């Protein structure tokens, strides 16, 4: 397919205007740039180009999208309707606060709801992604320790099953990363943790449920070990979708959390829209939250509040405002009971799918999973040469988005599957049928899987070549 630049023909325009009946001015050459090489196309070419591209893209509106740890739940269109209301779109962040009281109230309401759901005392909506939230959370932890003259707390403990963003964010924030091994149950190895904590520990970062979709049962004990050593407990909210209305990170002992509201609270992501990664804190870290925060006055008006002790700003203006409205619409639509039910259904769906394929796709034995599960195709690969990658590619031909692959690294030939609560039993039954058929095909005709996908424009890009010899210009 040609790019929009290749389709460009000099002089083509999407629209033309009649000669003006008012005086015109030509912009002086020194103020213009001739080298921008902008595409020149007619409106019909433009529409066809982007329609063709959208037909080739796959989203949750296209089909089943069990991309583990990404929570690709359906995003109700009602959320977009709310976010598109003119009162929320026809505004500017520099407007006087008296003229945007409704928008401020919406942000205030969302903050209150998120604190209630997570059991935290304060929140900043500013970060524009999960990783951005992690980075802010770590800066807050650093500010907290330094305010208490604890300057030697330079290490962040991170389990070996953690998301890659955790060590990356810790390093970005200037910390040293210490990896905590997993025990036989794939939880944090308590003895190893005890040996690693000390007066240089700034915090432990943890996802609960873990990336393996298992609830960390020892969380209270883990929290005590870290707190006794003077460290803080950080919650990566990537997997909050499993526990809304059932358990709260704040009650588990976490001091700082980030949420991925684009995952859990159903706003488009993965190419569909900007992210948002609010950070919640316990009272002790409240003074360091980014400026400004929103407060409600006695007269029920909303104001921005600036604190001297704040670490400053973490993004432009107030973050991705449109995403807040979508998340608020989602929370208000479902209510407390609805949020709890969606977590229950997310866990039920994952267990149903897991059970439907467990005899062929081995997973952690003897335990129910939470909202996602990880299977290992190590045996299948040894037997047939068919890898997790081959199964994932063949799923594309059967109308499904592949699961997350080769993660977490502690499971070999991993597929990480998260169906989410929005999929029906019919969709799950079809996924079970397809995965079972693919397994049988791997045994009978492995080559058929090696050639997948056959239905896409490009079958298998050479990832190794692309990484070794990247061609970044046309």
């Amino acid at each position: 397919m040609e790019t929009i630049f290749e389709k460009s023909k000099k002089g083509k325009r999407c629209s033309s205007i009649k000669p003006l009946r008012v005086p015109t001015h030509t912009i002086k050459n020194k103020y213009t740039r001739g080298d921008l090489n902008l595409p020149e196309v007619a409106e019909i070419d433009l529409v066809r180009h982007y329609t063709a591209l959208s037909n080739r893209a796959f989203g949750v509106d296209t089909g089943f999208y069990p991309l583990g740890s990404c929570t690709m739940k359906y995003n109700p269109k009602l959320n977009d309707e709310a976010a598109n209301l003119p009162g929320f779109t026809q505004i500017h962040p520099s407007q006087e606060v008296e003229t945007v009281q409704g928008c401020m109230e919406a942000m205030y309401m969302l903050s209150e709801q998120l604190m209630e759901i997570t059991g935290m005392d304060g929140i900043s909506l500013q970060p524009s992604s999960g990783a951005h939230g992690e980075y802010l959370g770590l800066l807050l932890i650093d500010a907290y320790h330094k305010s208490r003259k604890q300057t030697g707390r330079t290490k962040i403990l991170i389990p070996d099953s953690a998301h890659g963003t955790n060590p990356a964010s810790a390093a970005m924030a200037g910390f040293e990363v210490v990896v905590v091994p997993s025990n036989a149950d794939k939880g944090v190895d308590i003895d190893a943790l005890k040996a690693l904590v000390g007066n240089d520990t700034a915090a432990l970062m943890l996802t609960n449920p873990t990336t393996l979709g298992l609830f960390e049962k020892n969380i209270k004990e883990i929290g005590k070990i870290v707190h006794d050593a003077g460290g803080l407990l950080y919650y990566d909210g990537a997997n909050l979708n499993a526990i809304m209305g059932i358990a709260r990170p704040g009650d588990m002992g976490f001091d700082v959390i980030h949420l991925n509201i684009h995952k859990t609270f159903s706003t488009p992501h993965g190419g569909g829209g900007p992210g948002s990664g609010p950070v919640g804190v316990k009272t002790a870290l409240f003074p360091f939250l980014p400026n400004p925060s929103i407060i409600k006055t006695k007269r029920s008006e909303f104001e921005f509040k600036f604190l001297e002790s704040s670490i400053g700003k973490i993004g432009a203006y107030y973050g991705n405002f449109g995403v807040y409205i979508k998340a608020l619409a989602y929370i208000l639509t479902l209510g407390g009971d609805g949020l709890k039910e969606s977590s229950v259904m997310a866990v039920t769906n994952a267990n149903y799918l897991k059970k439907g394929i467990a005899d062929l796709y081995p997973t952690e034995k003897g335990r129910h999973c939470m909202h996602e599960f990880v299977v290992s195709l190590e045996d299948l690969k040894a037997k047939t040469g068919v890898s997790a990658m081959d199964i994932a590619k063949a799923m594309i031909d059967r109308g499904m988005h592949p699961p997350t692959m080769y993660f977490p690294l502690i499971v070999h030939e991993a597929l990480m599957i998260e169906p989410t609560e929005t999929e029906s039993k019919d969709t799950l039954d079809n996924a079970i049928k397809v995965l079972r058929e693919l397994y049988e095909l791997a045994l009978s005709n492995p080559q058929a899987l090696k050639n997948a996908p056959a239905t896409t424009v490009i079958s298998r890009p050479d990832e190794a070549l692309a990484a070794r010899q990247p061609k970044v210009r046309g």
Partner: protein
Amino acid sequence: MAKLMFTKTHEWILVDGQKGKIGLSDYAQKQLGDLVFIELPALGAKVAAGRAFMNVESVKAVSELNCPATGFVLAVNNDLEAAPEKVNQDPMGAWIVEIEFESLCDCLMSEDDYKKLIG
């Protein structure tokens, strides 16, 4: 005579006197998949037994290599910068780093024991 030993984190070291050439085991390269980048350490850099001393990047992940001995970097295999796939093609032939060591890691095992470990 040179002696080949392995770590449980899948590095090999071919020891000859006080020098040792270090590479990645066949098992490790298979698990990592196609290597796309090898970040070689600086010449003369101090390395410690059992500690991470360099990274390799594959299409799946970036992984740290742990040093099988304590000493310093004597030479690096510069060919791998342009052609990291050599480690995939011939993991036991494509050495990555050569070190001069004071002491070997206690953790080293024989090839037979390593084969038992990876099953």
